[in-house]
């Protein structure tokens, strides 16, 4: 009996041997094509739980991905803290318009992390509440067949949103203990939100921590400024956990696994073979088909070649290396009704991977 999409992804998370890896996107995947296909669009889908669930489930219903994932951006926690947000449009994601606290290491002007929101209130605020409600809807409608993924923001990244990322990074050099004090305080909220996602119906919590990438922090700073807090707020959760960090994460892959997560998500900036070698079977590897190239700008053949490279290298879940660009095309997707096979071309998901590349015996459609 064929495995369901859910069974396949859960097996991949445990690094079990499979006839083929699943194709799932644990980072964001909400394209214009998906919005047109399912009728739920940004910006409304950021704040309406039913629309959020509908758009998230379009990942499986219309694009053949083997998981469903919400929320849709990394500003929702900052908004719940009180940061002003521009909610964007159908084609642009929400943007931070300011910060919540004063933190200027150049002028030595600081707020202390002792006047933070009530935790229960935080979890009932804005898009945090929306996403938690969406998790319940998604688990109810798709949880039997698909893994439900809830996304949240890493503690160093969220702290930067609240204080000003540039100023936080500056203080990593001048006052590292102060930076850690803030990140530790904020990580309690990341932990509570991660647990709430699981309680609300998520099978997997995928945390994005882009501000701790090697483009910003020295690899040796990662465990001190971010890793130790990720370990507490993600690695300790009682559920499946994936940590995503952008850029060339090769120097910090061992540190990423030190956080205790089930798996890590890496970009194409780490060559697939090198990523697998460094990971050394310490956990599930998710990735690493390039987002801008080839997903957004390349041809289906380019995408297939990249996916094949990830599979051949040993990635457990074939996925976009980061968030899927909103303009990523899938030919014919808008006119394709859900729960049908694709007679003209057997493809697997938004990654446009021809089925024979991964040895897929049957297109991964809704099973029921």
């Amino acid at each position, binding site marked *: 009996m064929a495995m369901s999409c859910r069974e396949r992804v859960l097996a991949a998370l445990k690094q079990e041997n499979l006839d083929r890896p699943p194709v799932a996107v644990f980072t964001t995947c909400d394209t214009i094509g998906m919005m047109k296909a399912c009728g739920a669009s940004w910006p409304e889908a950021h704040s309406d739980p039913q629309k959020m669930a509908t758009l998230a489930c379009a990942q499986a219903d219309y694009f053949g991905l083997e998981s469903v994932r919400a929320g849709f951006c990394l500003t929702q926690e900052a908004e719940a803290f009180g940061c002003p947000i521009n909610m964007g449009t159908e084609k642009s994601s929400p943007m931070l318009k300011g910060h919540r606290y004063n933190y200027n290491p150049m002028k030595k002007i600081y707020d202390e992390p002792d006047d933070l929101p009530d935790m229960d209130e935080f979890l009932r605020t804005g898009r945090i509440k929306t996403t938690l409600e969406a998790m319940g809807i998604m688990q109810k409608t798709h949880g039997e067949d698909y893994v439900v993924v809830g996304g949240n923001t890493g503690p160093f990244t969220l702290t930067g949103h609240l204080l000003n990322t540039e100023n936080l*990074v500056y203080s990593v050099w001048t006052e590292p203990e102060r930076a850690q004090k803030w990140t530790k305080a904020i990580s309690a909220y990341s932990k509570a939100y991660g647990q709430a996602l699981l309680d609300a119906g998520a099978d997997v919590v995928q945390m994005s921590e882009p501000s701790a990438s090697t483009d910003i922090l020295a690899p040796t700073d990662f465990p001190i400024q971010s890793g130790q807090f990720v370990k507490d707020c993600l690695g300790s959760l009682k559920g499946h956990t994936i940590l995503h960090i952008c850029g060339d994460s090769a120097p910090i892959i061992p540190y990423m696994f030190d956080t205790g997560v089930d798996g890590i998500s890496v970009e194409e900036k780490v060559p697939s073979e090198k990523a697998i070698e460094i990971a050394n079977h310490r956990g599930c590897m998710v990735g690493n088909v390039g987002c801008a190239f080839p997903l957004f700008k390349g041809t289906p053949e380019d995408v297939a070649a990249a996916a094949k490279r990830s599979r051949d290298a040993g990635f457990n879940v074939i996925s976009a290396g980061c968030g899927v*660009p909103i303009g990523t095309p899938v030919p014919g997707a808008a006119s394709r009704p859900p729960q049908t096979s694709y007679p003209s071309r057997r493809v697997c998901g938004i990654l446009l991977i021809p089925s024979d590349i991964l040895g897929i015996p049957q297109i991964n459609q809704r099973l029921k």
Partner: protein
Amino acid sequence: MDEKAILKELADAVVACDPPRAKKAAETALSEGMDPVKAINEGLVVGMGVIGDNYAERKMYLPQVLVAAHSMYEGLDVLIPAIPKDESLTTKNAVCGVVQGDVHDIGKNIVKTMLTAAGFMVHDAGKDVPPEEFKKMMLDDGAQVVCLSTLMTPTMDNMAATVKLIANSGYRDKVIITIGGPPTNDAFAKEIGADHRDENAQQCVSFVNSKV
């Protein structure tokens, strides 16, 4: 303190990521009668160049670069007002900004710092900048260089729209356009008609210096 020692101290203060030391060295330069333009170009800028090279080679990381840049600006704040009004520090103008739809500006700020260190008068367009604003600043400031940045893939199209607007302005042959940011690459730069894709700030400076 002789001139050579003062210049070395200005550079060393930047490399040491020590803003008060850089400010003090700049004050010393003036009190010793040094030409402020020389103090900038042969002192502070030399130090920032060392930082930029190390950052490009990943021997230094962003926290150090930010503090080194602050050190350079502390010195500049002392030295620039001392430049005689009839003596121009630079005639090279650049506009830097993050394209519309994106507010991630750390990379842009590093490019701004390194272009400043390379002798450009940098006009900072800020973040979430519409194409029309880039065009207006380019024309108003007589820029020879426009540097566009984005961290996010959705806003790559706005980068293309900005280059297109500049191309249609009748000013395209007078300006060098470079782009940068994680989602960009050489092929994308060529596709949208930019002159160069900057892998990092130092590469941006090397390219525009070869053209301007």
